[in-house]
């Protein structure tokens, strides 16, 4: 995969409607390893936007920078240049105080449900955390926690238990409940199902869809899996080495991609039907042969 890919395709015209999130020409760089090492840029000018209630997928391989985009939106990665606008307001340089207020509207679900819950804090307290941060009084917070647990189909006594008493899928439900605690407008979903088994994966995805239908929350959905992104997203962005190479409607990008990298990504993912996979493999071989000539 060290080949040089053609230039990214021009982004399609911005779709109509109000935007909840607007990222323009975002660059993120991290300090290099070692003393006086130059900074390493991982995002080279990324632009994307999300409308209220919409899911925008972001698909790429490891090291592509897909996770960094989500972290930059959340203020967990340093923005070097470019703009992140949330509901019409610049947030890329938001103060710690502004960030704390933003947490009402902007939430996250991380990849690893084992790492995203503190193992020594009972689930109920973890869920109450965002409520306390927003100044919800204790009694209301407790009621809200029970409400949230019911919403993600966990029993009420889950509040007193520690994360290790739950399975991977259940923990991810807890993480979803935490993200929903204060009724956010946008949730960054960073590979929310890639640590889960196939059958659990499907139920968690369906829960996310159901929540979106009920609340009108928007998702920035980050994943390495084209089929998951396709299932979840209205629009899809394909990112490779810090650059978005193709974006468009889910159907178009995931079935008839135009950029060679997306095509390669699609053909590389095996499908669970031997006959279809034989065709896909043949197509991949042809592509490889073309690329080599």
């Amino acid at each position: 995969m060290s080949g040089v890919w053609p230039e990214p395709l021009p982004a399609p015209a911005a779709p109509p409607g109000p935007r909840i999130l607007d990222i323009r020409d975002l660059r993120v760089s991290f300090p290099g390893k070692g003393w006086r090492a130059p900074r390493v840029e991982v995002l080279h000018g990324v632009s994307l936007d999300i409308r209220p209630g919409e899911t925008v997928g972001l698909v790429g391989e490891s090291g592509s920078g897909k996770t960094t985009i989500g972290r930059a939106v959340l203020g967990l990665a340093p923005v070097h240049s470019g703009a992140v606008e949330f509901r019409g307001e610049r947030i890329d340089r938001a103060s710690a105080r502004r960030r704390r207020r933003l947490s009402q509207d902007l939430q996250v679900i991380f990849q690893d449900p084992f790492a995203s819950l503190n193992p020594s804090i009972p689930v109920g307290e973890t869920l109450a955390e965002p409520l306390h941060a927003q100044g919800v009084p204790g009694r209301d917070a407790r009621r809200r926690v029970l409400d949230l647990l019911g919403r993600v189909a966990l029993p009420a006594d889950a509040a007193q238990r520690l994360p290790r008493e739950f399975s991977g899928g259940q923990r991810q439900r807890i993480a979803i409940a935490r993200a929903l605690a204060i009724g956010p407008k946008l949730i960054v979903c960073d590979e929310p199902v890639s640590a889960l088994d196939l059958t659990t994966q499907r139920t968690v995805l369906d829960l996310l869809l159901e929540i979106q239908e009920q609340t009108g929350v928007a998702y920035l959905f980050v994943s390495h899996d084209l089929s998951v992104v396709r299932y979840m997203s209205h629009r899809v962005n394909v990112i490779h080495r810090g650059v978005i190479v193709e974006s468009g409607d889910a159907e178009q990008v995931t079935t008839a991609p135009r950029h060679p990298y997306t095509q390669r990504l699609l053909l590389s993912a095996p499908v669970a039907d031997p006959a279809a996979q034989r065709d896909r493999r043949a197509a991949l071989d042809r592509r490889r042969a073309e690329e080599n000539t």
Partner: protein
Amino acid sequence: MSEALTSDNHLPAGAAAPRRAKPVRRFLRNPQAVISALVLGVVGGAVLLAPLLSTDPGAAELSKAFAGAEPGHPLGFDSAGRDVWSRLLHGGRNTLGGALIALAVALSIGVPSGLVAGYYGKWFDAVANWAGNFVMALPAMVVLLASRAILGPTMWVLMVVLGVLVAPSFFRLVRGIVATVRGELYVDAARVSGLRDRRIIARHVLIVVRAPIIIQIALVAGIAISLQAGLEFLGIGSGDLPTWGAMLNEAFQNVQRSPLFMLWPGLALGITSAALVLLASALRDVLEDGGTPPPRPRAARRARVSAPTTSDSAGARAALLSVRDLAVSYGSGASAVDVVRGVDIDVAEGEVVGLVGQSGSGKSQTAFSVLGILPEGGRVSRGSILIAGTEVVGLPEKRYRALRGGVVAYVPQEPMTNLDPAFTVGGQLVEPMRLRLGLSRKAAAERALELLRQVEIADPRRVFDAYPHEISGGMAQRVLIAGAMSCDPKLLIADEPTTALDVTVQAEVLELLRRLQAERGLGVLLVTHDLGVVADLCDRVAVMNAGRIVETGRTAQVLTRPQDPYTRTLIEAVLDDAPARPAWVAPRAADGAEVPA
């Protein structure tokens, strides 16, 4: 929603750990913890109440020098005719008090600086870390002696210096843990939840460092007591202040005359230090999670399984690999858990058989038992495994070893952790070939380079000389495949060989496996959770759930017309054929909310 719940609860029971007792109760149930805490309590109490329990430690009656016990003086008199019991108790006050000062100083320097350095990093971390290393490189005893030259012979001041000297042990501990916690996703999640740094440190960070700090306190207290007593023993403390170290010094001066005088201060010092360290090690068990269960006796791991009876259940057995009624158990007796319960599987020459299942289904355990490399505590408890006609269940290790690498080879899941970091790639490829094929160093190196070429590595020479951390994951997996091929096996056991790889790299590695399999006529047992990989590579497939095989058959038939309900659930969860999400339509609710009334 209800459907979601039920299928989620399908997960193997082992995925969720049982509840643990509260720390206090665990402490009370640990005899080592209770006894050492009691000992420390008695010592501390006696020392605190010294003025009530004994007389003036300085009062000397020269006539009574070396006299034995008498009423009111249970331990007799020392060389200057002073009451040993009084000196022991008052000495304890000074010794333990000094250690306490040192501990307090060390804690108040080490913990806050560790918290700040670990949480915020940057320049403070760099400076504090250097200072910590600097102090740790100083021999404490020499520094204390030098400090005495500067500060004079005041024990209490020296204890402050000692506190500074042992502070880095707290600093390092706290800094290390906090830096790890700082990178945890749950701290990120708390920040996104709108928590202030102060609150995050108080809630998420302190709770994690609490237990290690308590353990370290006990350890450092032991060290402080030992150094304090050592200083006093050298006779350079505060003149005739009674301490255990000073008492030992006096006793040692008179060792030829009356060696027994060393007994009481020695005992006091030894018991206190030992109780502290034993308390620390018991606290570690009590407070830290995931204490490893006691290892099972070795004998059980080697237990021979009675030779299998000829299987009549599953027809003719394949020539290359044939597994019948395999069971794998962990633990022994009543607590034994079966993770594989009666598995039959066959791989013929040149055939690729997939073994699919979700995590915890027992598929990897099946693969490990074929290779005879089950993790510690696991054993084949029943069944038969024939590899190229040889029964390997109960086979002596030496003969089994002859099969491994030569007849049956292994490709693991995680490429980066399966290469020994201390040896070059070439070294690791050459070693088995020299040993097993008896090749010369040069011949083996040539063959290794040839193998690297065969697994389509562009620059074999460079990779040959590289260390594992210098190559990428995809490259490492190719190296592992080359290693598996090095002694021309007939059967390949591949355990999730592409799971850790990116999808484009996965496609290349699958292609490579397919080519090698066809060229060499390999039989392959491919363990995977990915039905796409199965469709791509396998002739036949076996579906595993909860330690059992629920369905076996030709790949096309199982994947397109599954018979078993579990297989059907699995295939229905695949998203390949699910429709793409239709284009976004402005939600009415959201619109309504945005439009001013």
